[in-house]
């Protein structure tokens, strides 16, 4: 099985249990670098796929919560190299597939070829790159696919249908359906026409569709779960970590109504 197929399989396995897959996001090394692996294991014990955020100096698609966590992690010395080293120590204990969410520049600086090799060795199955639109993505996609890793495409409610088809076809592992027109961590809740939009994406995609942005509570997971294969939880989980609360019980509570 290729690495990116592990992602699709993990999501489908959750669906087979009659619930949407849960995809928690954490900023690597936040709030404390020394707790990164422990937090990751906690989150992985409930989540079906875990998304690891690589801190970046200019997180332009993120709201306050993830920006703040990103800056603090950077201040505390977190880097992509460090994250890989940490993952090496924990790999055997984590059986859910991992995805990295990174802005492009840290990946460019690492070098695509080295990145793909290193990622595969660390149990990472795919990448989400919010500032890399499809038109600019050939080089990274080729480097990742050569190692069986997936480049996960984002689609949004503003994406026209013709483009939606192209992005769904290009995506590997799953399709990341952004639920709102905005940045992460918005408080406005899920939009009213969510069902139509997610159904539209799902109808065009051959791989599972996971919805993200604005998912904060069990009701949200349930709502997106009716039209999407999985729910991505980012800012709300980072807030839990920020408050020093237990991520495991928070994630379990999200599945409460849906399982």
């Amino acid at each position, binding site marked *: 099985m290729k690495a990116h197929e592990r992602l699709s399989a993990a999501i489908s396995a959750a669906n087979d249990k009659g619930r949407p897959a849960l995809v928690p996001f954490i900023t690597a090394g936040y709030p404390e670098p020394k707790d990164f692996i422990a937090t990751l294991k906690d989150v992985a014990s409930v989540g079906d796929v875990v998304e690891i955020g690589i801190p970046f100096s*200019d997180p*332009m698609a993120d709201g306050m919560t993830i920006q703040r966590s990103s800056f603090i992690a950077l201040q505390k010395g977190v880097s992509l190299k460090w994250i890989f080293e940490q993952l090496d120590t924990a790999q055997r204990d984590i059986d859910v597939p991992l995805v990295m969410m990174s802005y492009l*520049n840290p990946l*460019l600086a*690492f070098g695509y070829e080295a990145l793909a090799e290193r990622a595969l060795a660390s149990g990472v199955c795919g990448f989400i790159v919010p500032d890399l*639109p499809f*038109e600019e993505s050939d080089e990274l996609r080729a480097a990742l696919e050569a190692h069986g890793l997936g480049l996960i495409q984002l689609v*949004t409610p*503003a994406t026209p249908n013709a483009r939606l088809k192209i992005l769904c076809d290009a995506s590997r592992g799953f399709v990341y359906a952004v639920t709102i*027109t905005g940045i992460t961590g918005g408080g406005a809740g899920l939009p009213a026409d969510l069902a139509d939009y997610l159904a539209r994406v799902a109808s065009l995609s051959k791989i599972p569709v996971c919805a993200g942005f604005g998912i904060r509570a069990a009701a949200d997971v349930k709502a997106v779960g009716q039209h999407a294969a999985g729910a991505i939880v980012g800012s709300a989980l980072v807030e839990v970590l920020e408050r020093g609360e237990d991520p495991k019980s928070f994630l379990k509570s999200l599945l409460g109504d849906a399982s």
Partner: protein
Amino acid sequence: MSTLFAAEEAKRLLDAMIKGDMPDARGRFGPFGGRYVPETLVPAFDRLEAGVKEHLHAPGFQAEFQRELREWVGRPTALTFAPQLSKNWGAEVWIKREDLAHTGAHKINNAIGQALLAKRLGAKRVIAETGAGQHGVASAAACARVGLPCSVYMGAVDMARQAPNVDRMRRLGAEVVAVETGDKTLRAAIDEAMREWVTDPDGIYYLLGSAVGAHPYPYLVRELQAVIGREARQQMLDQAGGLPDVAFACVGGGSNAIGLFYPLLADDIELIGVEAGGIGDGLGENAATLATGTPGVLQGAYTIILQDDDGQVQETQSISAGLDYSGVGPEHALLQATGRVKYISARDSDALDALEELCASEGILTALETAHAYAAAREYAKKNPRKRILIGNSGRGDKDMPTLTQFPARTRRHESA
């Protein structure tokens, strides 16, 4: 970074630039440029690109733009001979006076052009970022002129050090939004403006102030600023009787420099861009992006940026807020890589000296940004006597008085004589 291309490739790329073939269809200046934006903004960029293609060079838009430049901005701006500087330096010094444009800097050329475009594209409101406040003031004025609401994103640090410009923007009807994230200066303001744009890509027009960012902005801003170089070229022929040997412009994002240089690329003129050398050569001590940076992606474009080994963008230091930026326009990255334009830097202290000399010699208080170009030109003149020098005087220095008061004027040579 030194020259990147072999001579033949450099010539091919430069010829393409001169012919007007850059950027290419993908928004590339050779390897630089492109469009690295979140998926949410892709349709907005597609619309902007289509709008630029439809309107920018259409007779109707150009007639309106040229009329506004003439009657509202006050163009053409003067070309001034500088007799005392010429004597001091052993050179023939000419100054292109963008400080005389409305609101006091070249920024207005771009602001009014894009505001007119926003109107034609049916935008409901305009957002803009600003560092020193010059682009913010220009945007506020241009939006008032065309009748669009305007919000200016400005780092909290810059708001404190450029308080008079904050008040100017508000009086011109703009809302000024304090940016408390990141480094709280220009780069954070751009990030925050992008975040706002993502919330309403259909209704908002983002009026970007420099020749940076994702395609089509570097192209759009260059086209709107090229009036500087076109005027200066003709004025040199008319007033000086010939083209300059060398032209200098300061470079932050690089909009005034590309505006001056672009129409001069085909001529036998040495072109020198001057970045902020800050207080030293170390990473974080300056904003000399082209001189010391490496290729990377920042705020929408593949260009030269100041970054560490992990690809984290570094903070900069400069006495001038307008040059205090970790990236540079992608076209400058190509101009450097082809060897057509040379990029050097001047330190804070040299810029201050040059500013003082210009004040005393020619009665012109130039902006701290612009002063870097004078500092480099003066050094050049020492090594290259009797050259005809053109300096792009991108803006006036009134806005810098709060900073300048920390550096009392020295006794002037000719006063004590």
